[in-house]
Structures are given as structure tokens and as C-alpha cells.
């Protein structure tokens, strides 16, 4: 973008579309326009590559196992809910006449 002949405004327009491009959500025309721009503009290309690598890293984040004893705690919690649900409703005392 330090290139004086370079249209900064076009860069900004493309910059807004980078995530949609990474996700394959741009229509063919927009996609072709962006790819043409990326081929000519090192700044936007670097921007796209660093953003794409960020997304790739996020997608690689692994799940942690639940803490020890948590599954048992949850099983007991659900069991108690079921007992409460199945318990007969308390009978109302008969109204005094």
C-alpha cells in the first residue's frame, strides 16, 4: 500500500471481504475480483494469509476432557431432577367446610 499508483480505496473494499473469501461465501464474480486483487497487492495478500492462518489455528483448538468427577456429579444431578419430576404431587389438605 506504499505504492503511490495503488488504489487504497480498492484495498479497503477487498479487506472487508477477506473472511467471506476464506469461508468460500463470496459469489464467483466477487471471488474472481478479490483473487485478481490479491495477485497484484502484496499487502492484501499478506493480510489474507495471516487471517487465514488465524482461522486455521482456531479450527485446530482441541477439546479438554471434563474434570474428574464432573460426569458423576452431572449424572446425580439429572437423577435428582427425574426423582423430583416423578414424585407424586403433595396432596392438598381437605378444605374445612
Amino acid at each position: 500500500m506504499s505504492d503511490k499508483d495503488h488504489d487504497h480505496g480498492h484495498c479497503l473494499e477487498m479487506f472487508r471481504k477477506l473472511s467471506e473469501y476464506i469461508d468460500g461465501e463470496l459469489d464467483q464474480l466477487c471471488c474472481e475480483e478479490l483473487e485478481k486483487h490479491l495477485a497484484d497487492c502484496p499487502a492484501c495478500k499478506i493480510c489474507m494469509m495471516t487471517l487465514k492462518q488465524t482461522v486455521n489455528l482456531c479450527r485446530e483448538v482441541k477439546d479438554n476432557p471434563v474434570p474428574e468427577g464432573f460426569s458423576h456429579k452431572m449424572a446425580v444431578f439429572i437423577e435428582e431432577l427425574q426423582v423430583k419430576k416423578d414424585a407424586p404431587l403433595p396432596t392438598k389438605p381437605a378444605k374445612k367446610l
Partner: protein
Amino acid sequence: MTASHNRKRITDQDTELIEAINAGRGDRFPELLKRYEEKLYNFGLRMCGDVRDAEDLVQDTFLNVFKYLKDFRFETKFKNWLYRVATSTCIKKRRKSKFAPEHEISLDDFIPAESEQVAQEAPGWARMPLEQLLNEELAVQLKEAILSLPEKYRLVVVLRDLEGFSTAETAHILNLQPSNVKVRLHRARLFLRDQLKGYFEQ
């Protein structure tokens, strides 16, 4: 015929189990818990950053699932409905991370200045294969960066890039327009990219 009758019924790997539970097989509810307990725990951890809060999120979500499963109409995948319940539970409790002040992220913050001197090649970390790049320290950095995002951006990036939901699914879970999901996602990703850049350039 009402609008709800016209909606397409969606079946997935959970349909049979949910139908059984709703037909009186409450004893099969723990199977549902087993299927999603770890996923929800990790969602909670990513949103709250705290083990106890993540455990509470799983418990509160399953309490709501237990109460409202009979109202599930198979108009979406069960997993999407479950995350909608979890997200709403999360927002209602206003579990804000201690690292995350609520503020807007502006696109302008990430636009390179016109006069900026630009490298001709992407930095090494952007060109390295993921398996060479990933390690425990980087995973911690990334998790902290995610936790430092304001909640509304964190929710979108967690659902889209970590939990793997599509734009349309994320929009449904968060009750947002898909265009809003895209805007928030782009800003959240740019924020994370800047955090990673800072880490790699240290």
C-alpha cells in the same frame, strides 16, 4: 394450516433418542447428557475461561433441556437447539470474563495505513504448516486472545471457528441476521490475528 405445520421436520442422530425421552423414557436422558457434556463443557470454558463457570453452564443448560425438551419441535438439529439454550443461559447469567471489557471492535482499527511500509512476503508463522506451528504455548495464547474479545464477538468466533457451526446456524443460535454474524466474525478474526501477530513478533 399454521406456519409451524409447514416447517420441514429435521431428523439427525439425536432424533430417535429425543423421541424416546419425550415418549416417557426419561431413563434415557443420561444418554443425551453423555453425548454433549464434553462439547458443552468446552464451549463454556471458551466463553467463560473458568472451570467452575463452565461446569455451571453445563448444569444450567441441561436443567433447561430437561425442562423444555418436550417443546422441541425438530425444526432444527438438536445440537443447534442445545447451543441456543446454552448461549442464552450464558448471556442471561452475564458471565463476563474478567479479561473482557465490553466494547465495540471497529474495522478501522485493523485497516493498514496507506503510508505503511509493507513487507513483500507473509511472516513465517503464516506460511508454516499447522502441525509445525501448534504447541501448548500457542494454544494458551490463542485461548487468552479469545477470552479477551468482547462477549458478542467471542460468541460468534467460538461458534463459527471453534465449534464448527455455519454462518446460517450461528445466526439461528444467536438470533441474528447472517450479515451481522459475518461482520462480527470478520472483526473478531482480525482482532485475534493482531494478537497472534503480537505474540509471534515478540
